[in-house]
C-alpha cells in the first residue's frame, strides 16, 4: 500500500509538470490548470489512503477551507485579483508554518530540525508579508513606503535574532521557548520586510511571496519527508523567481533595490520641464480619434482603479467600426501584479492577441495616429530615456511620445506613484484629458455613438 501511495505521488508530480507546461500558452492554459488540479486531487487522495488517519477532522478542515476558498474565488472582482492572490499566498505560507511546527517530534534529527525551522521561517514571513501586501493593495493600510530611522538596524537585529534562536532550537529542541521565538520573529520579519515597499513595486513583491510560498511548502516537505511537497513546492518556487526577475528587469532595478530602497517615498527632485500643459475636451478628442486610422491604448493601474475596462472595450469597438486599427500596449509592470492589465481586459472581452507586449508595440509606435494613455504614468515616462538624473532612468518604457498625438487621461496633475515629473505631459504632441477615466471614455463613446 505504501508503495502505491508513493507511485500516486509520482503520478501527481507528472500531472503538475504537464499542467504548468500547458499554462504557458493561452490556447491550452485552461486545460493546463485543470490537469494540475487533477494532480492535486491524486496527491490528496493518496495521502488520505495512508494508514491511521483521523478523517473526521481532516474533512472538517477541508470543508471549512474549501468553502471559504470557493466563495472567495467566485466573488472576487477582477480588479481585486492582486490582493486575492496575495491573501492566498499568505494562507499557503501559514499552512507550511503549521505543518513545520506539527512535524516536531521528540528525537528528530538535526537535519529535520533545520528543515522545520526553515518551513516556519519562510512560511511565517510569507504569511505576514502577504497580509501586509494585501493591506497595501486593498488600500486598507497606506500603500506608500513606511520608513523610519534605523530601519535597517532594526531589521538586522530581527534577522540576527531569528538566526540565534534557530541555532538554539536546533541544539536544544526540547526547550520550546526557542521555537516560539523563531515563530514570533519570523512573523514580525514578514511585516518589516514588506512595509517599506511602495504600491507600484507590488508586482515584484507578490511574485516573490509567491515564490516563498512554494519554498515554504518545499521546506515542509523536507520536514515531513514527503517528495511531492518538495517537487510541487520547488516548481512554484522557481515560477515565482522567474516572474520576480521579469518584473525587476521591466523596472530596470535590482531585487535588492526594490526590497530595501523605499522607492517612491515622496522625495521629489525638482526637475525643470520645458513646455506647457495642453488640456483637451472630450469633444475635441473625439474629432481627432474619428480621423485616426491607427490607435494604441496604454492602460495602467488608473484603469483598474476607475474600473474603466468595459467602457474601454466599448470605445475600441466603435473605433474599429469606424475603420481604425486598435491595439493595446501592455507594460510588464503596469498595474499591481504581473499581467494585471491583461486579466482586466480579458474580463472586458478584449481578445488577447490584441494586447501587445512593450517590445512589440514600440517599433510600430511611429505609425500610430493616437496613443491613449489611461491611468498610466511611469511606464510611459520619456524621462526614463532622456533624463539621466531621473530615478527611473534606464527603465524600459512604452514610447507613446513617438505617436503623432498622445492623449493622457488623468485625474489631476499630481505626479505618478514614484513622485517623478513626467515630461510627456509637456510635449508638443500631448493633450491632457482631465477627469475620471471611466467618465472621459464614456463621453467619447457617447460622441461616437451619437
Amino acid at each position, binding site marked *: 500500500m505504501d508503495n502505491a501511495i508513493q507511485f500516486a505521488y509520482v503520478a501527481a508530480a507528472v500531472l503538475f509538470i504537464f*499542467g504548468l507546461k500547458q499554462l504557458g500558452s493561452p490556447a491550452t492554459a485552461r486545460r493546463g490548470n485543470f490537469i494540475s488540479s487533477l494532480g492535486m486531487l491524486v496527491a490528496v487522495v493518496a495521502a488520505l489512503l495512508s494508514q491511521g488517519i483521523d478523517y473526521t477532522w481532516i474533512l472538517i478542515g477541508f470543508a471549512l477551507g474549501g468553502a471559504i476558498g470557493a466563495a472567495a474565488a467566485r466573488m472576487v472582482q477582477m480588479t481585486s485579483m492582486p490582493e486575492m492572490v496575495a491573501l492566498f499566498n499568505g494562507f499557503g505560507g501559514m499552512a507550511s508554518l503549521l505543518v513545520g511546527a506539527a512535524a516536531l517530534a521528540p528525537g528528530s534529527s538535526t537535519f529535520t530540525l533545520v528543515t522545520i525551522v526553515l518551513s516556519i521561517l519562510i512560511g511565517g514571513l510569507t504569511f505576514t508579508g502577504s497580509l501586509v501586501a494585501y493591506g497595501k493593495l486593498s488600500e486598507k493600510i497606506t500603500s506608500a513606503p513606511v520608513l523610519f530611522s534605523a530601519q535597517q538596524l532594526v531589521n538586522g537585529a530581527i534577522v540576527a535574532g531569528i538566526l540565534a534562536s534557530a541555532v538554539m532550537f536546533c541544539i536544544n529542541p526540547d526547550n520550546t521557548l526557542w521555537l516560539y521565538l523563531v515563530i514570533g520573529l519570523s512573523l514580525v520579519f514578514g511585516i518589516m520586510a514588506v512595509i517599506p515597499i511602495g504600491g507600484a513595486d507590488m508586482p515584484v513583491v507578490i511574485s516573490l511571496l*509567491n515564490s516563498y510560498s512554494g519554498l515554504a511548502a518545499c521546506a515542509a516537505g523536507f520536514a515531513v519527508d514527503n517528495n511531492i511537497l518538495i517537487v510541487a513546492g520547488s516548481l512554484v518556487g*522557481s515560477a515565482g523567481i522567474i516572474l520576480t526577475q521579469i518584473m525587476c528587469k521591466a523596472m530596470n532595478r535590482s531585487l535588492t533595490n526594490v526590497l530595501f530602497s523605499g522607492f517612491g517615498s515622496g522625495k521629489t527632485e525638482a526637475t525643470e520641464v520645458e513646455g506647457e500643459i495642453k488640456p483637451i475636451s472630450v469633444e475635441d478628442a473625439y474629432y481627432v480619434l474619428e480621423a485616426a486610422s491607427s490607435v494604441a491604448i496604454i492602460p495602467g493601474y488608473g484603469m483598474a482603479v476607475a474600473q474603466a475596462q468595459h467602457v474601454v472595450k466599448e470605445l475600441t469597438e466603435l473605433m474599429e467600426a469606424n475603420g481604425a486599427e486598435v491595439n493595446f500596449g501592455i507594460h510588464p509592470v503596469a498595474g499591481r501584479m504581473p499581467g*494585471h492589465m491583461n486579466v482586466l481586459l480579458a474580463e472586458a472581452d478584449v481578445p488577447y492577441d490584441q494586447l501587445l507586449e512593450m517590445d512589440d508595440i514600440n517599433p510600430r509606435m511611429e505609425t500610430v495616429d493616437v496613443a491613449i494613455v489611461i491611468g498610466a504614468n511611469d511606464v510611459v515616462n520619456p524621462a526614463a530615456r532622456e533624463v539621466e538624473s531621473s530615478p527611473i532612468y534606464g527603465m524600459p518604457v512604452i514610447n507613446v511620445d513617438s505617436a503623432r498625438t498622445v492623449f493622457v487621461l488623468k485625474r489631476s496633475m499630481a505626479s505618478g506613484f514614484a513622485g517623478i515629473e513626467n515630461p510627456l505631459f509637456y510635449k508638443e504632441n500631448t493633450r491632457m484629458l482631465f477627469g475620471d477615466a471611466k467618465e472621459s471614455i464614456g463621453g467619447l463613446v457617447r460622441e461616437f455613438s451619437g
Partner: protein
Amino acid sequence: MITELYQVPSEVFLTFILVLSIFLGFELINKVPATLHTPLMSGANAISGITLVGAVSLVGSGDPDLSKWLAVGAVALASINVVGGYLVTDRMLAMFKKKEG
C-alpha cells in the same frame, strides 16, 4: 548475491529531488507570455497548497494533542489555497479569448 546495498540517505535523496525540480521549474516557466502572468501566478499558488498533503499525513490518529490541532489548522488553510486558487485561475482563464475570424 548482494547482501548489503548502499542506501542513499534520505536527506541526500530529497535534496536531489529538490535540485532537479527547481531546474525543471525554470525550464517549464521561462517562456510564458506576459498575458498569462496572473493566471500562472495564481495557478502556481494553488499548487503551493500541496502543503495540504503534508498536513493530512500529520493529522494522525485520534489522540487530540497540540500537533494534531496545528495540522488540522494547516489542512483548513491549505484547502483555501488549493480550492480557491484553482477556481479563480479557471475563472480568469475562461475569459481569455482569441480574436474571432
